């Protein structure tokens, strides 16, 4: 199968379902006469996207920046922390259960504390994106490092490789499939963390990010703008997921079954 044909075979099933859902949504709004402030139709959302494009695109850019910074931070810290937990059994027993808290406590509950610690603006939003998305990276790294082939570990032991070199040359490459699984989950969570962080910690006004746009649109009963902002946040999530997926494919395609 040629590359375009393969790409088309991936794209058309979800595109078809999205198309059918949009038609059903539009039809339901028309037929049932649902008011715009309760559920705007896809056409109304599209119109809002067009009319508010400048403000919404600026907001998307700001949210994208916070999401990327938060995701980058969680990727870096997650891999480092996962590696430490895999290497130091005492840290694993002591710290790993606590990292579950990051997964259990809702970000809406943490966000106000982050504002207290980091202040209003980008730092608290980045922190929210990081806190929400770090756990899958830690878990993926830890799982990957704990499932390194014991035979290969023995090989490195025979050659008296140091812990750091064993991690760098064996543990890390061997864990890449698990790390990328964690990063894919984290990509989706990072956008949620950024938007929720912006609900609480971002400045409003004309230069507001998506989360703040949603809050201000809610206050003005502009459901069409809320939906438009949600669409753009989803696009951000998909884009980051796609980039991580592509990166994973580039790193693993030659040797790991998951990327072939």
């Amino acid at each position, binding site marked *: 199968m040629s590359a375009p044909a393969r790409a088309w075979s991936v794209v058309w099933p979800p595109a078809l379902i999205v198309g059918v859902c949009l038609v059903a949504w539009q039809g339901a709004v028309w037929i049932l006469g649902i008011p715009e402030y309760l559920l705007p139709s896809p056409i109304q959302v599209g119109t809002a996207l067009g009319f508010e494009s400048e403000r919404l695109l600026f907001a998307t850019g700001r949210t994208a920046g916070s999401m990327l910074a938060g995701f980058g931070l969680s990727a870096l810290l997650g891999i480092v922390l996962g590696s430490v937990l895999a290497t130091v059994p005492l840290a694993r027993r002591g710290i790993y259960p606590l990292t579950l808290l990051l997964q259990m406590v809702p970000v809406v509950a943490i966000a106000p504390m982050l504002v207290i610690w980091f202040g209003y603006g980008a730092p608290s939003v980045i922190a929210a994106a990081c806190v929400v998305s770090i756990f899958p990276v830690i878990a993926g790294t830890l799982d990957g490092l704990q499932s390194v*082939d014991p*035979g*290969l570990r*023995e*090989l*490195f*032991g*025979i*050659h*008296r*490789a140091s812990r750091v*070199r064993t991690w760098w*040359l*064996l543990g890390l*490459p*061997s864990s*890449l499939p698990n790390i990328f699984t964690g990063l894919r989950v984290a990509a989706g969570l990072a956008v949620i963390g950024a938007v929720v962080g912006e609900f609480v910690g971002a400045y409003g006004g004309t230069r507001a990010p998506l989360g703040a746009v949603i809050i201000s649109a809610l206050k003005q009963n502009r459901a069409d703008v809320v939906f438009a902002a949600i669409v753009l946040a989803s696009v951000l999530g998909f884009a980051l997921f796609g980039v991580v997926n592509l990166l994973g494919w580039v790193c693993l395609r*030659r*040797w*790991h079954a998951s990327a072939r």
Partner: protein
Amino acid sequence: MIGSATGVTLKNLHKVFEPDVTVVDGLDLTIESGKFTALLGPSGCGKTTILRMIGGLEEPDLGEIGFSSESPTTAFCFQEPRLLPWRSVRGNVGLPLELAKVGKPARSAAVDAAIDLVGLADAAQRLPAALSGGMRMRTALARSLVTDPGLLLLDEPFASLDEVTRFRLDEEVSRLVRSRDATVLIVTHSIAEAVFLADEVVVLSDRPARIMGRFNVDFAVRNVGLRVTPAFAEISSRVYEALRSGMEDVS
């Protein structure tokens, strides 16, 4: 990294695995420096454990392991190739030198030489997934030879391969290691392999491993024709008798 042939002496070696499985029980054995020795015994008799203790991968419960040189350079070739799947043949062969922090130019020359030795020059850039079983074992063999070890420990390296490939690789191993200043110890349960490769075949009984016989194998030429000679058949038959008596002894 160049090592000189290292002899090995085992004195009163004991090894018990939990729960109370005695694998080696007071084994004494001397492996002469520069010789190719085969440890032959039935599956599960403890021969791999002996090899792993010599290689430092297992600690004996009792007894001593002595080496004829002060700091022996040892290399291990396992039953499985144990290759890093994300590294090419070159990358895998060069790994021991990389871990020993050998500089790039010296490493590159040694890796090229080892890959040439095992006949994988054309496949040097391929990943393990793109190699046949025999090519993977050759890569593992090149990796164990690249440091020029004084003591080479081979743990049934070709056990999982088909017989034709196995015979071919036996011939290659014989050619490769006999041109070096190294002591080689191979563990196998194949009589034909042991007799073809080794200068001395040490036959072990079923668990716990005891020495049932030692056979000097003195063939001037070891090539494809050797396996069909009467001398080969005669010594194989004697080795078989010792092996069988070791198994009957225990049962």
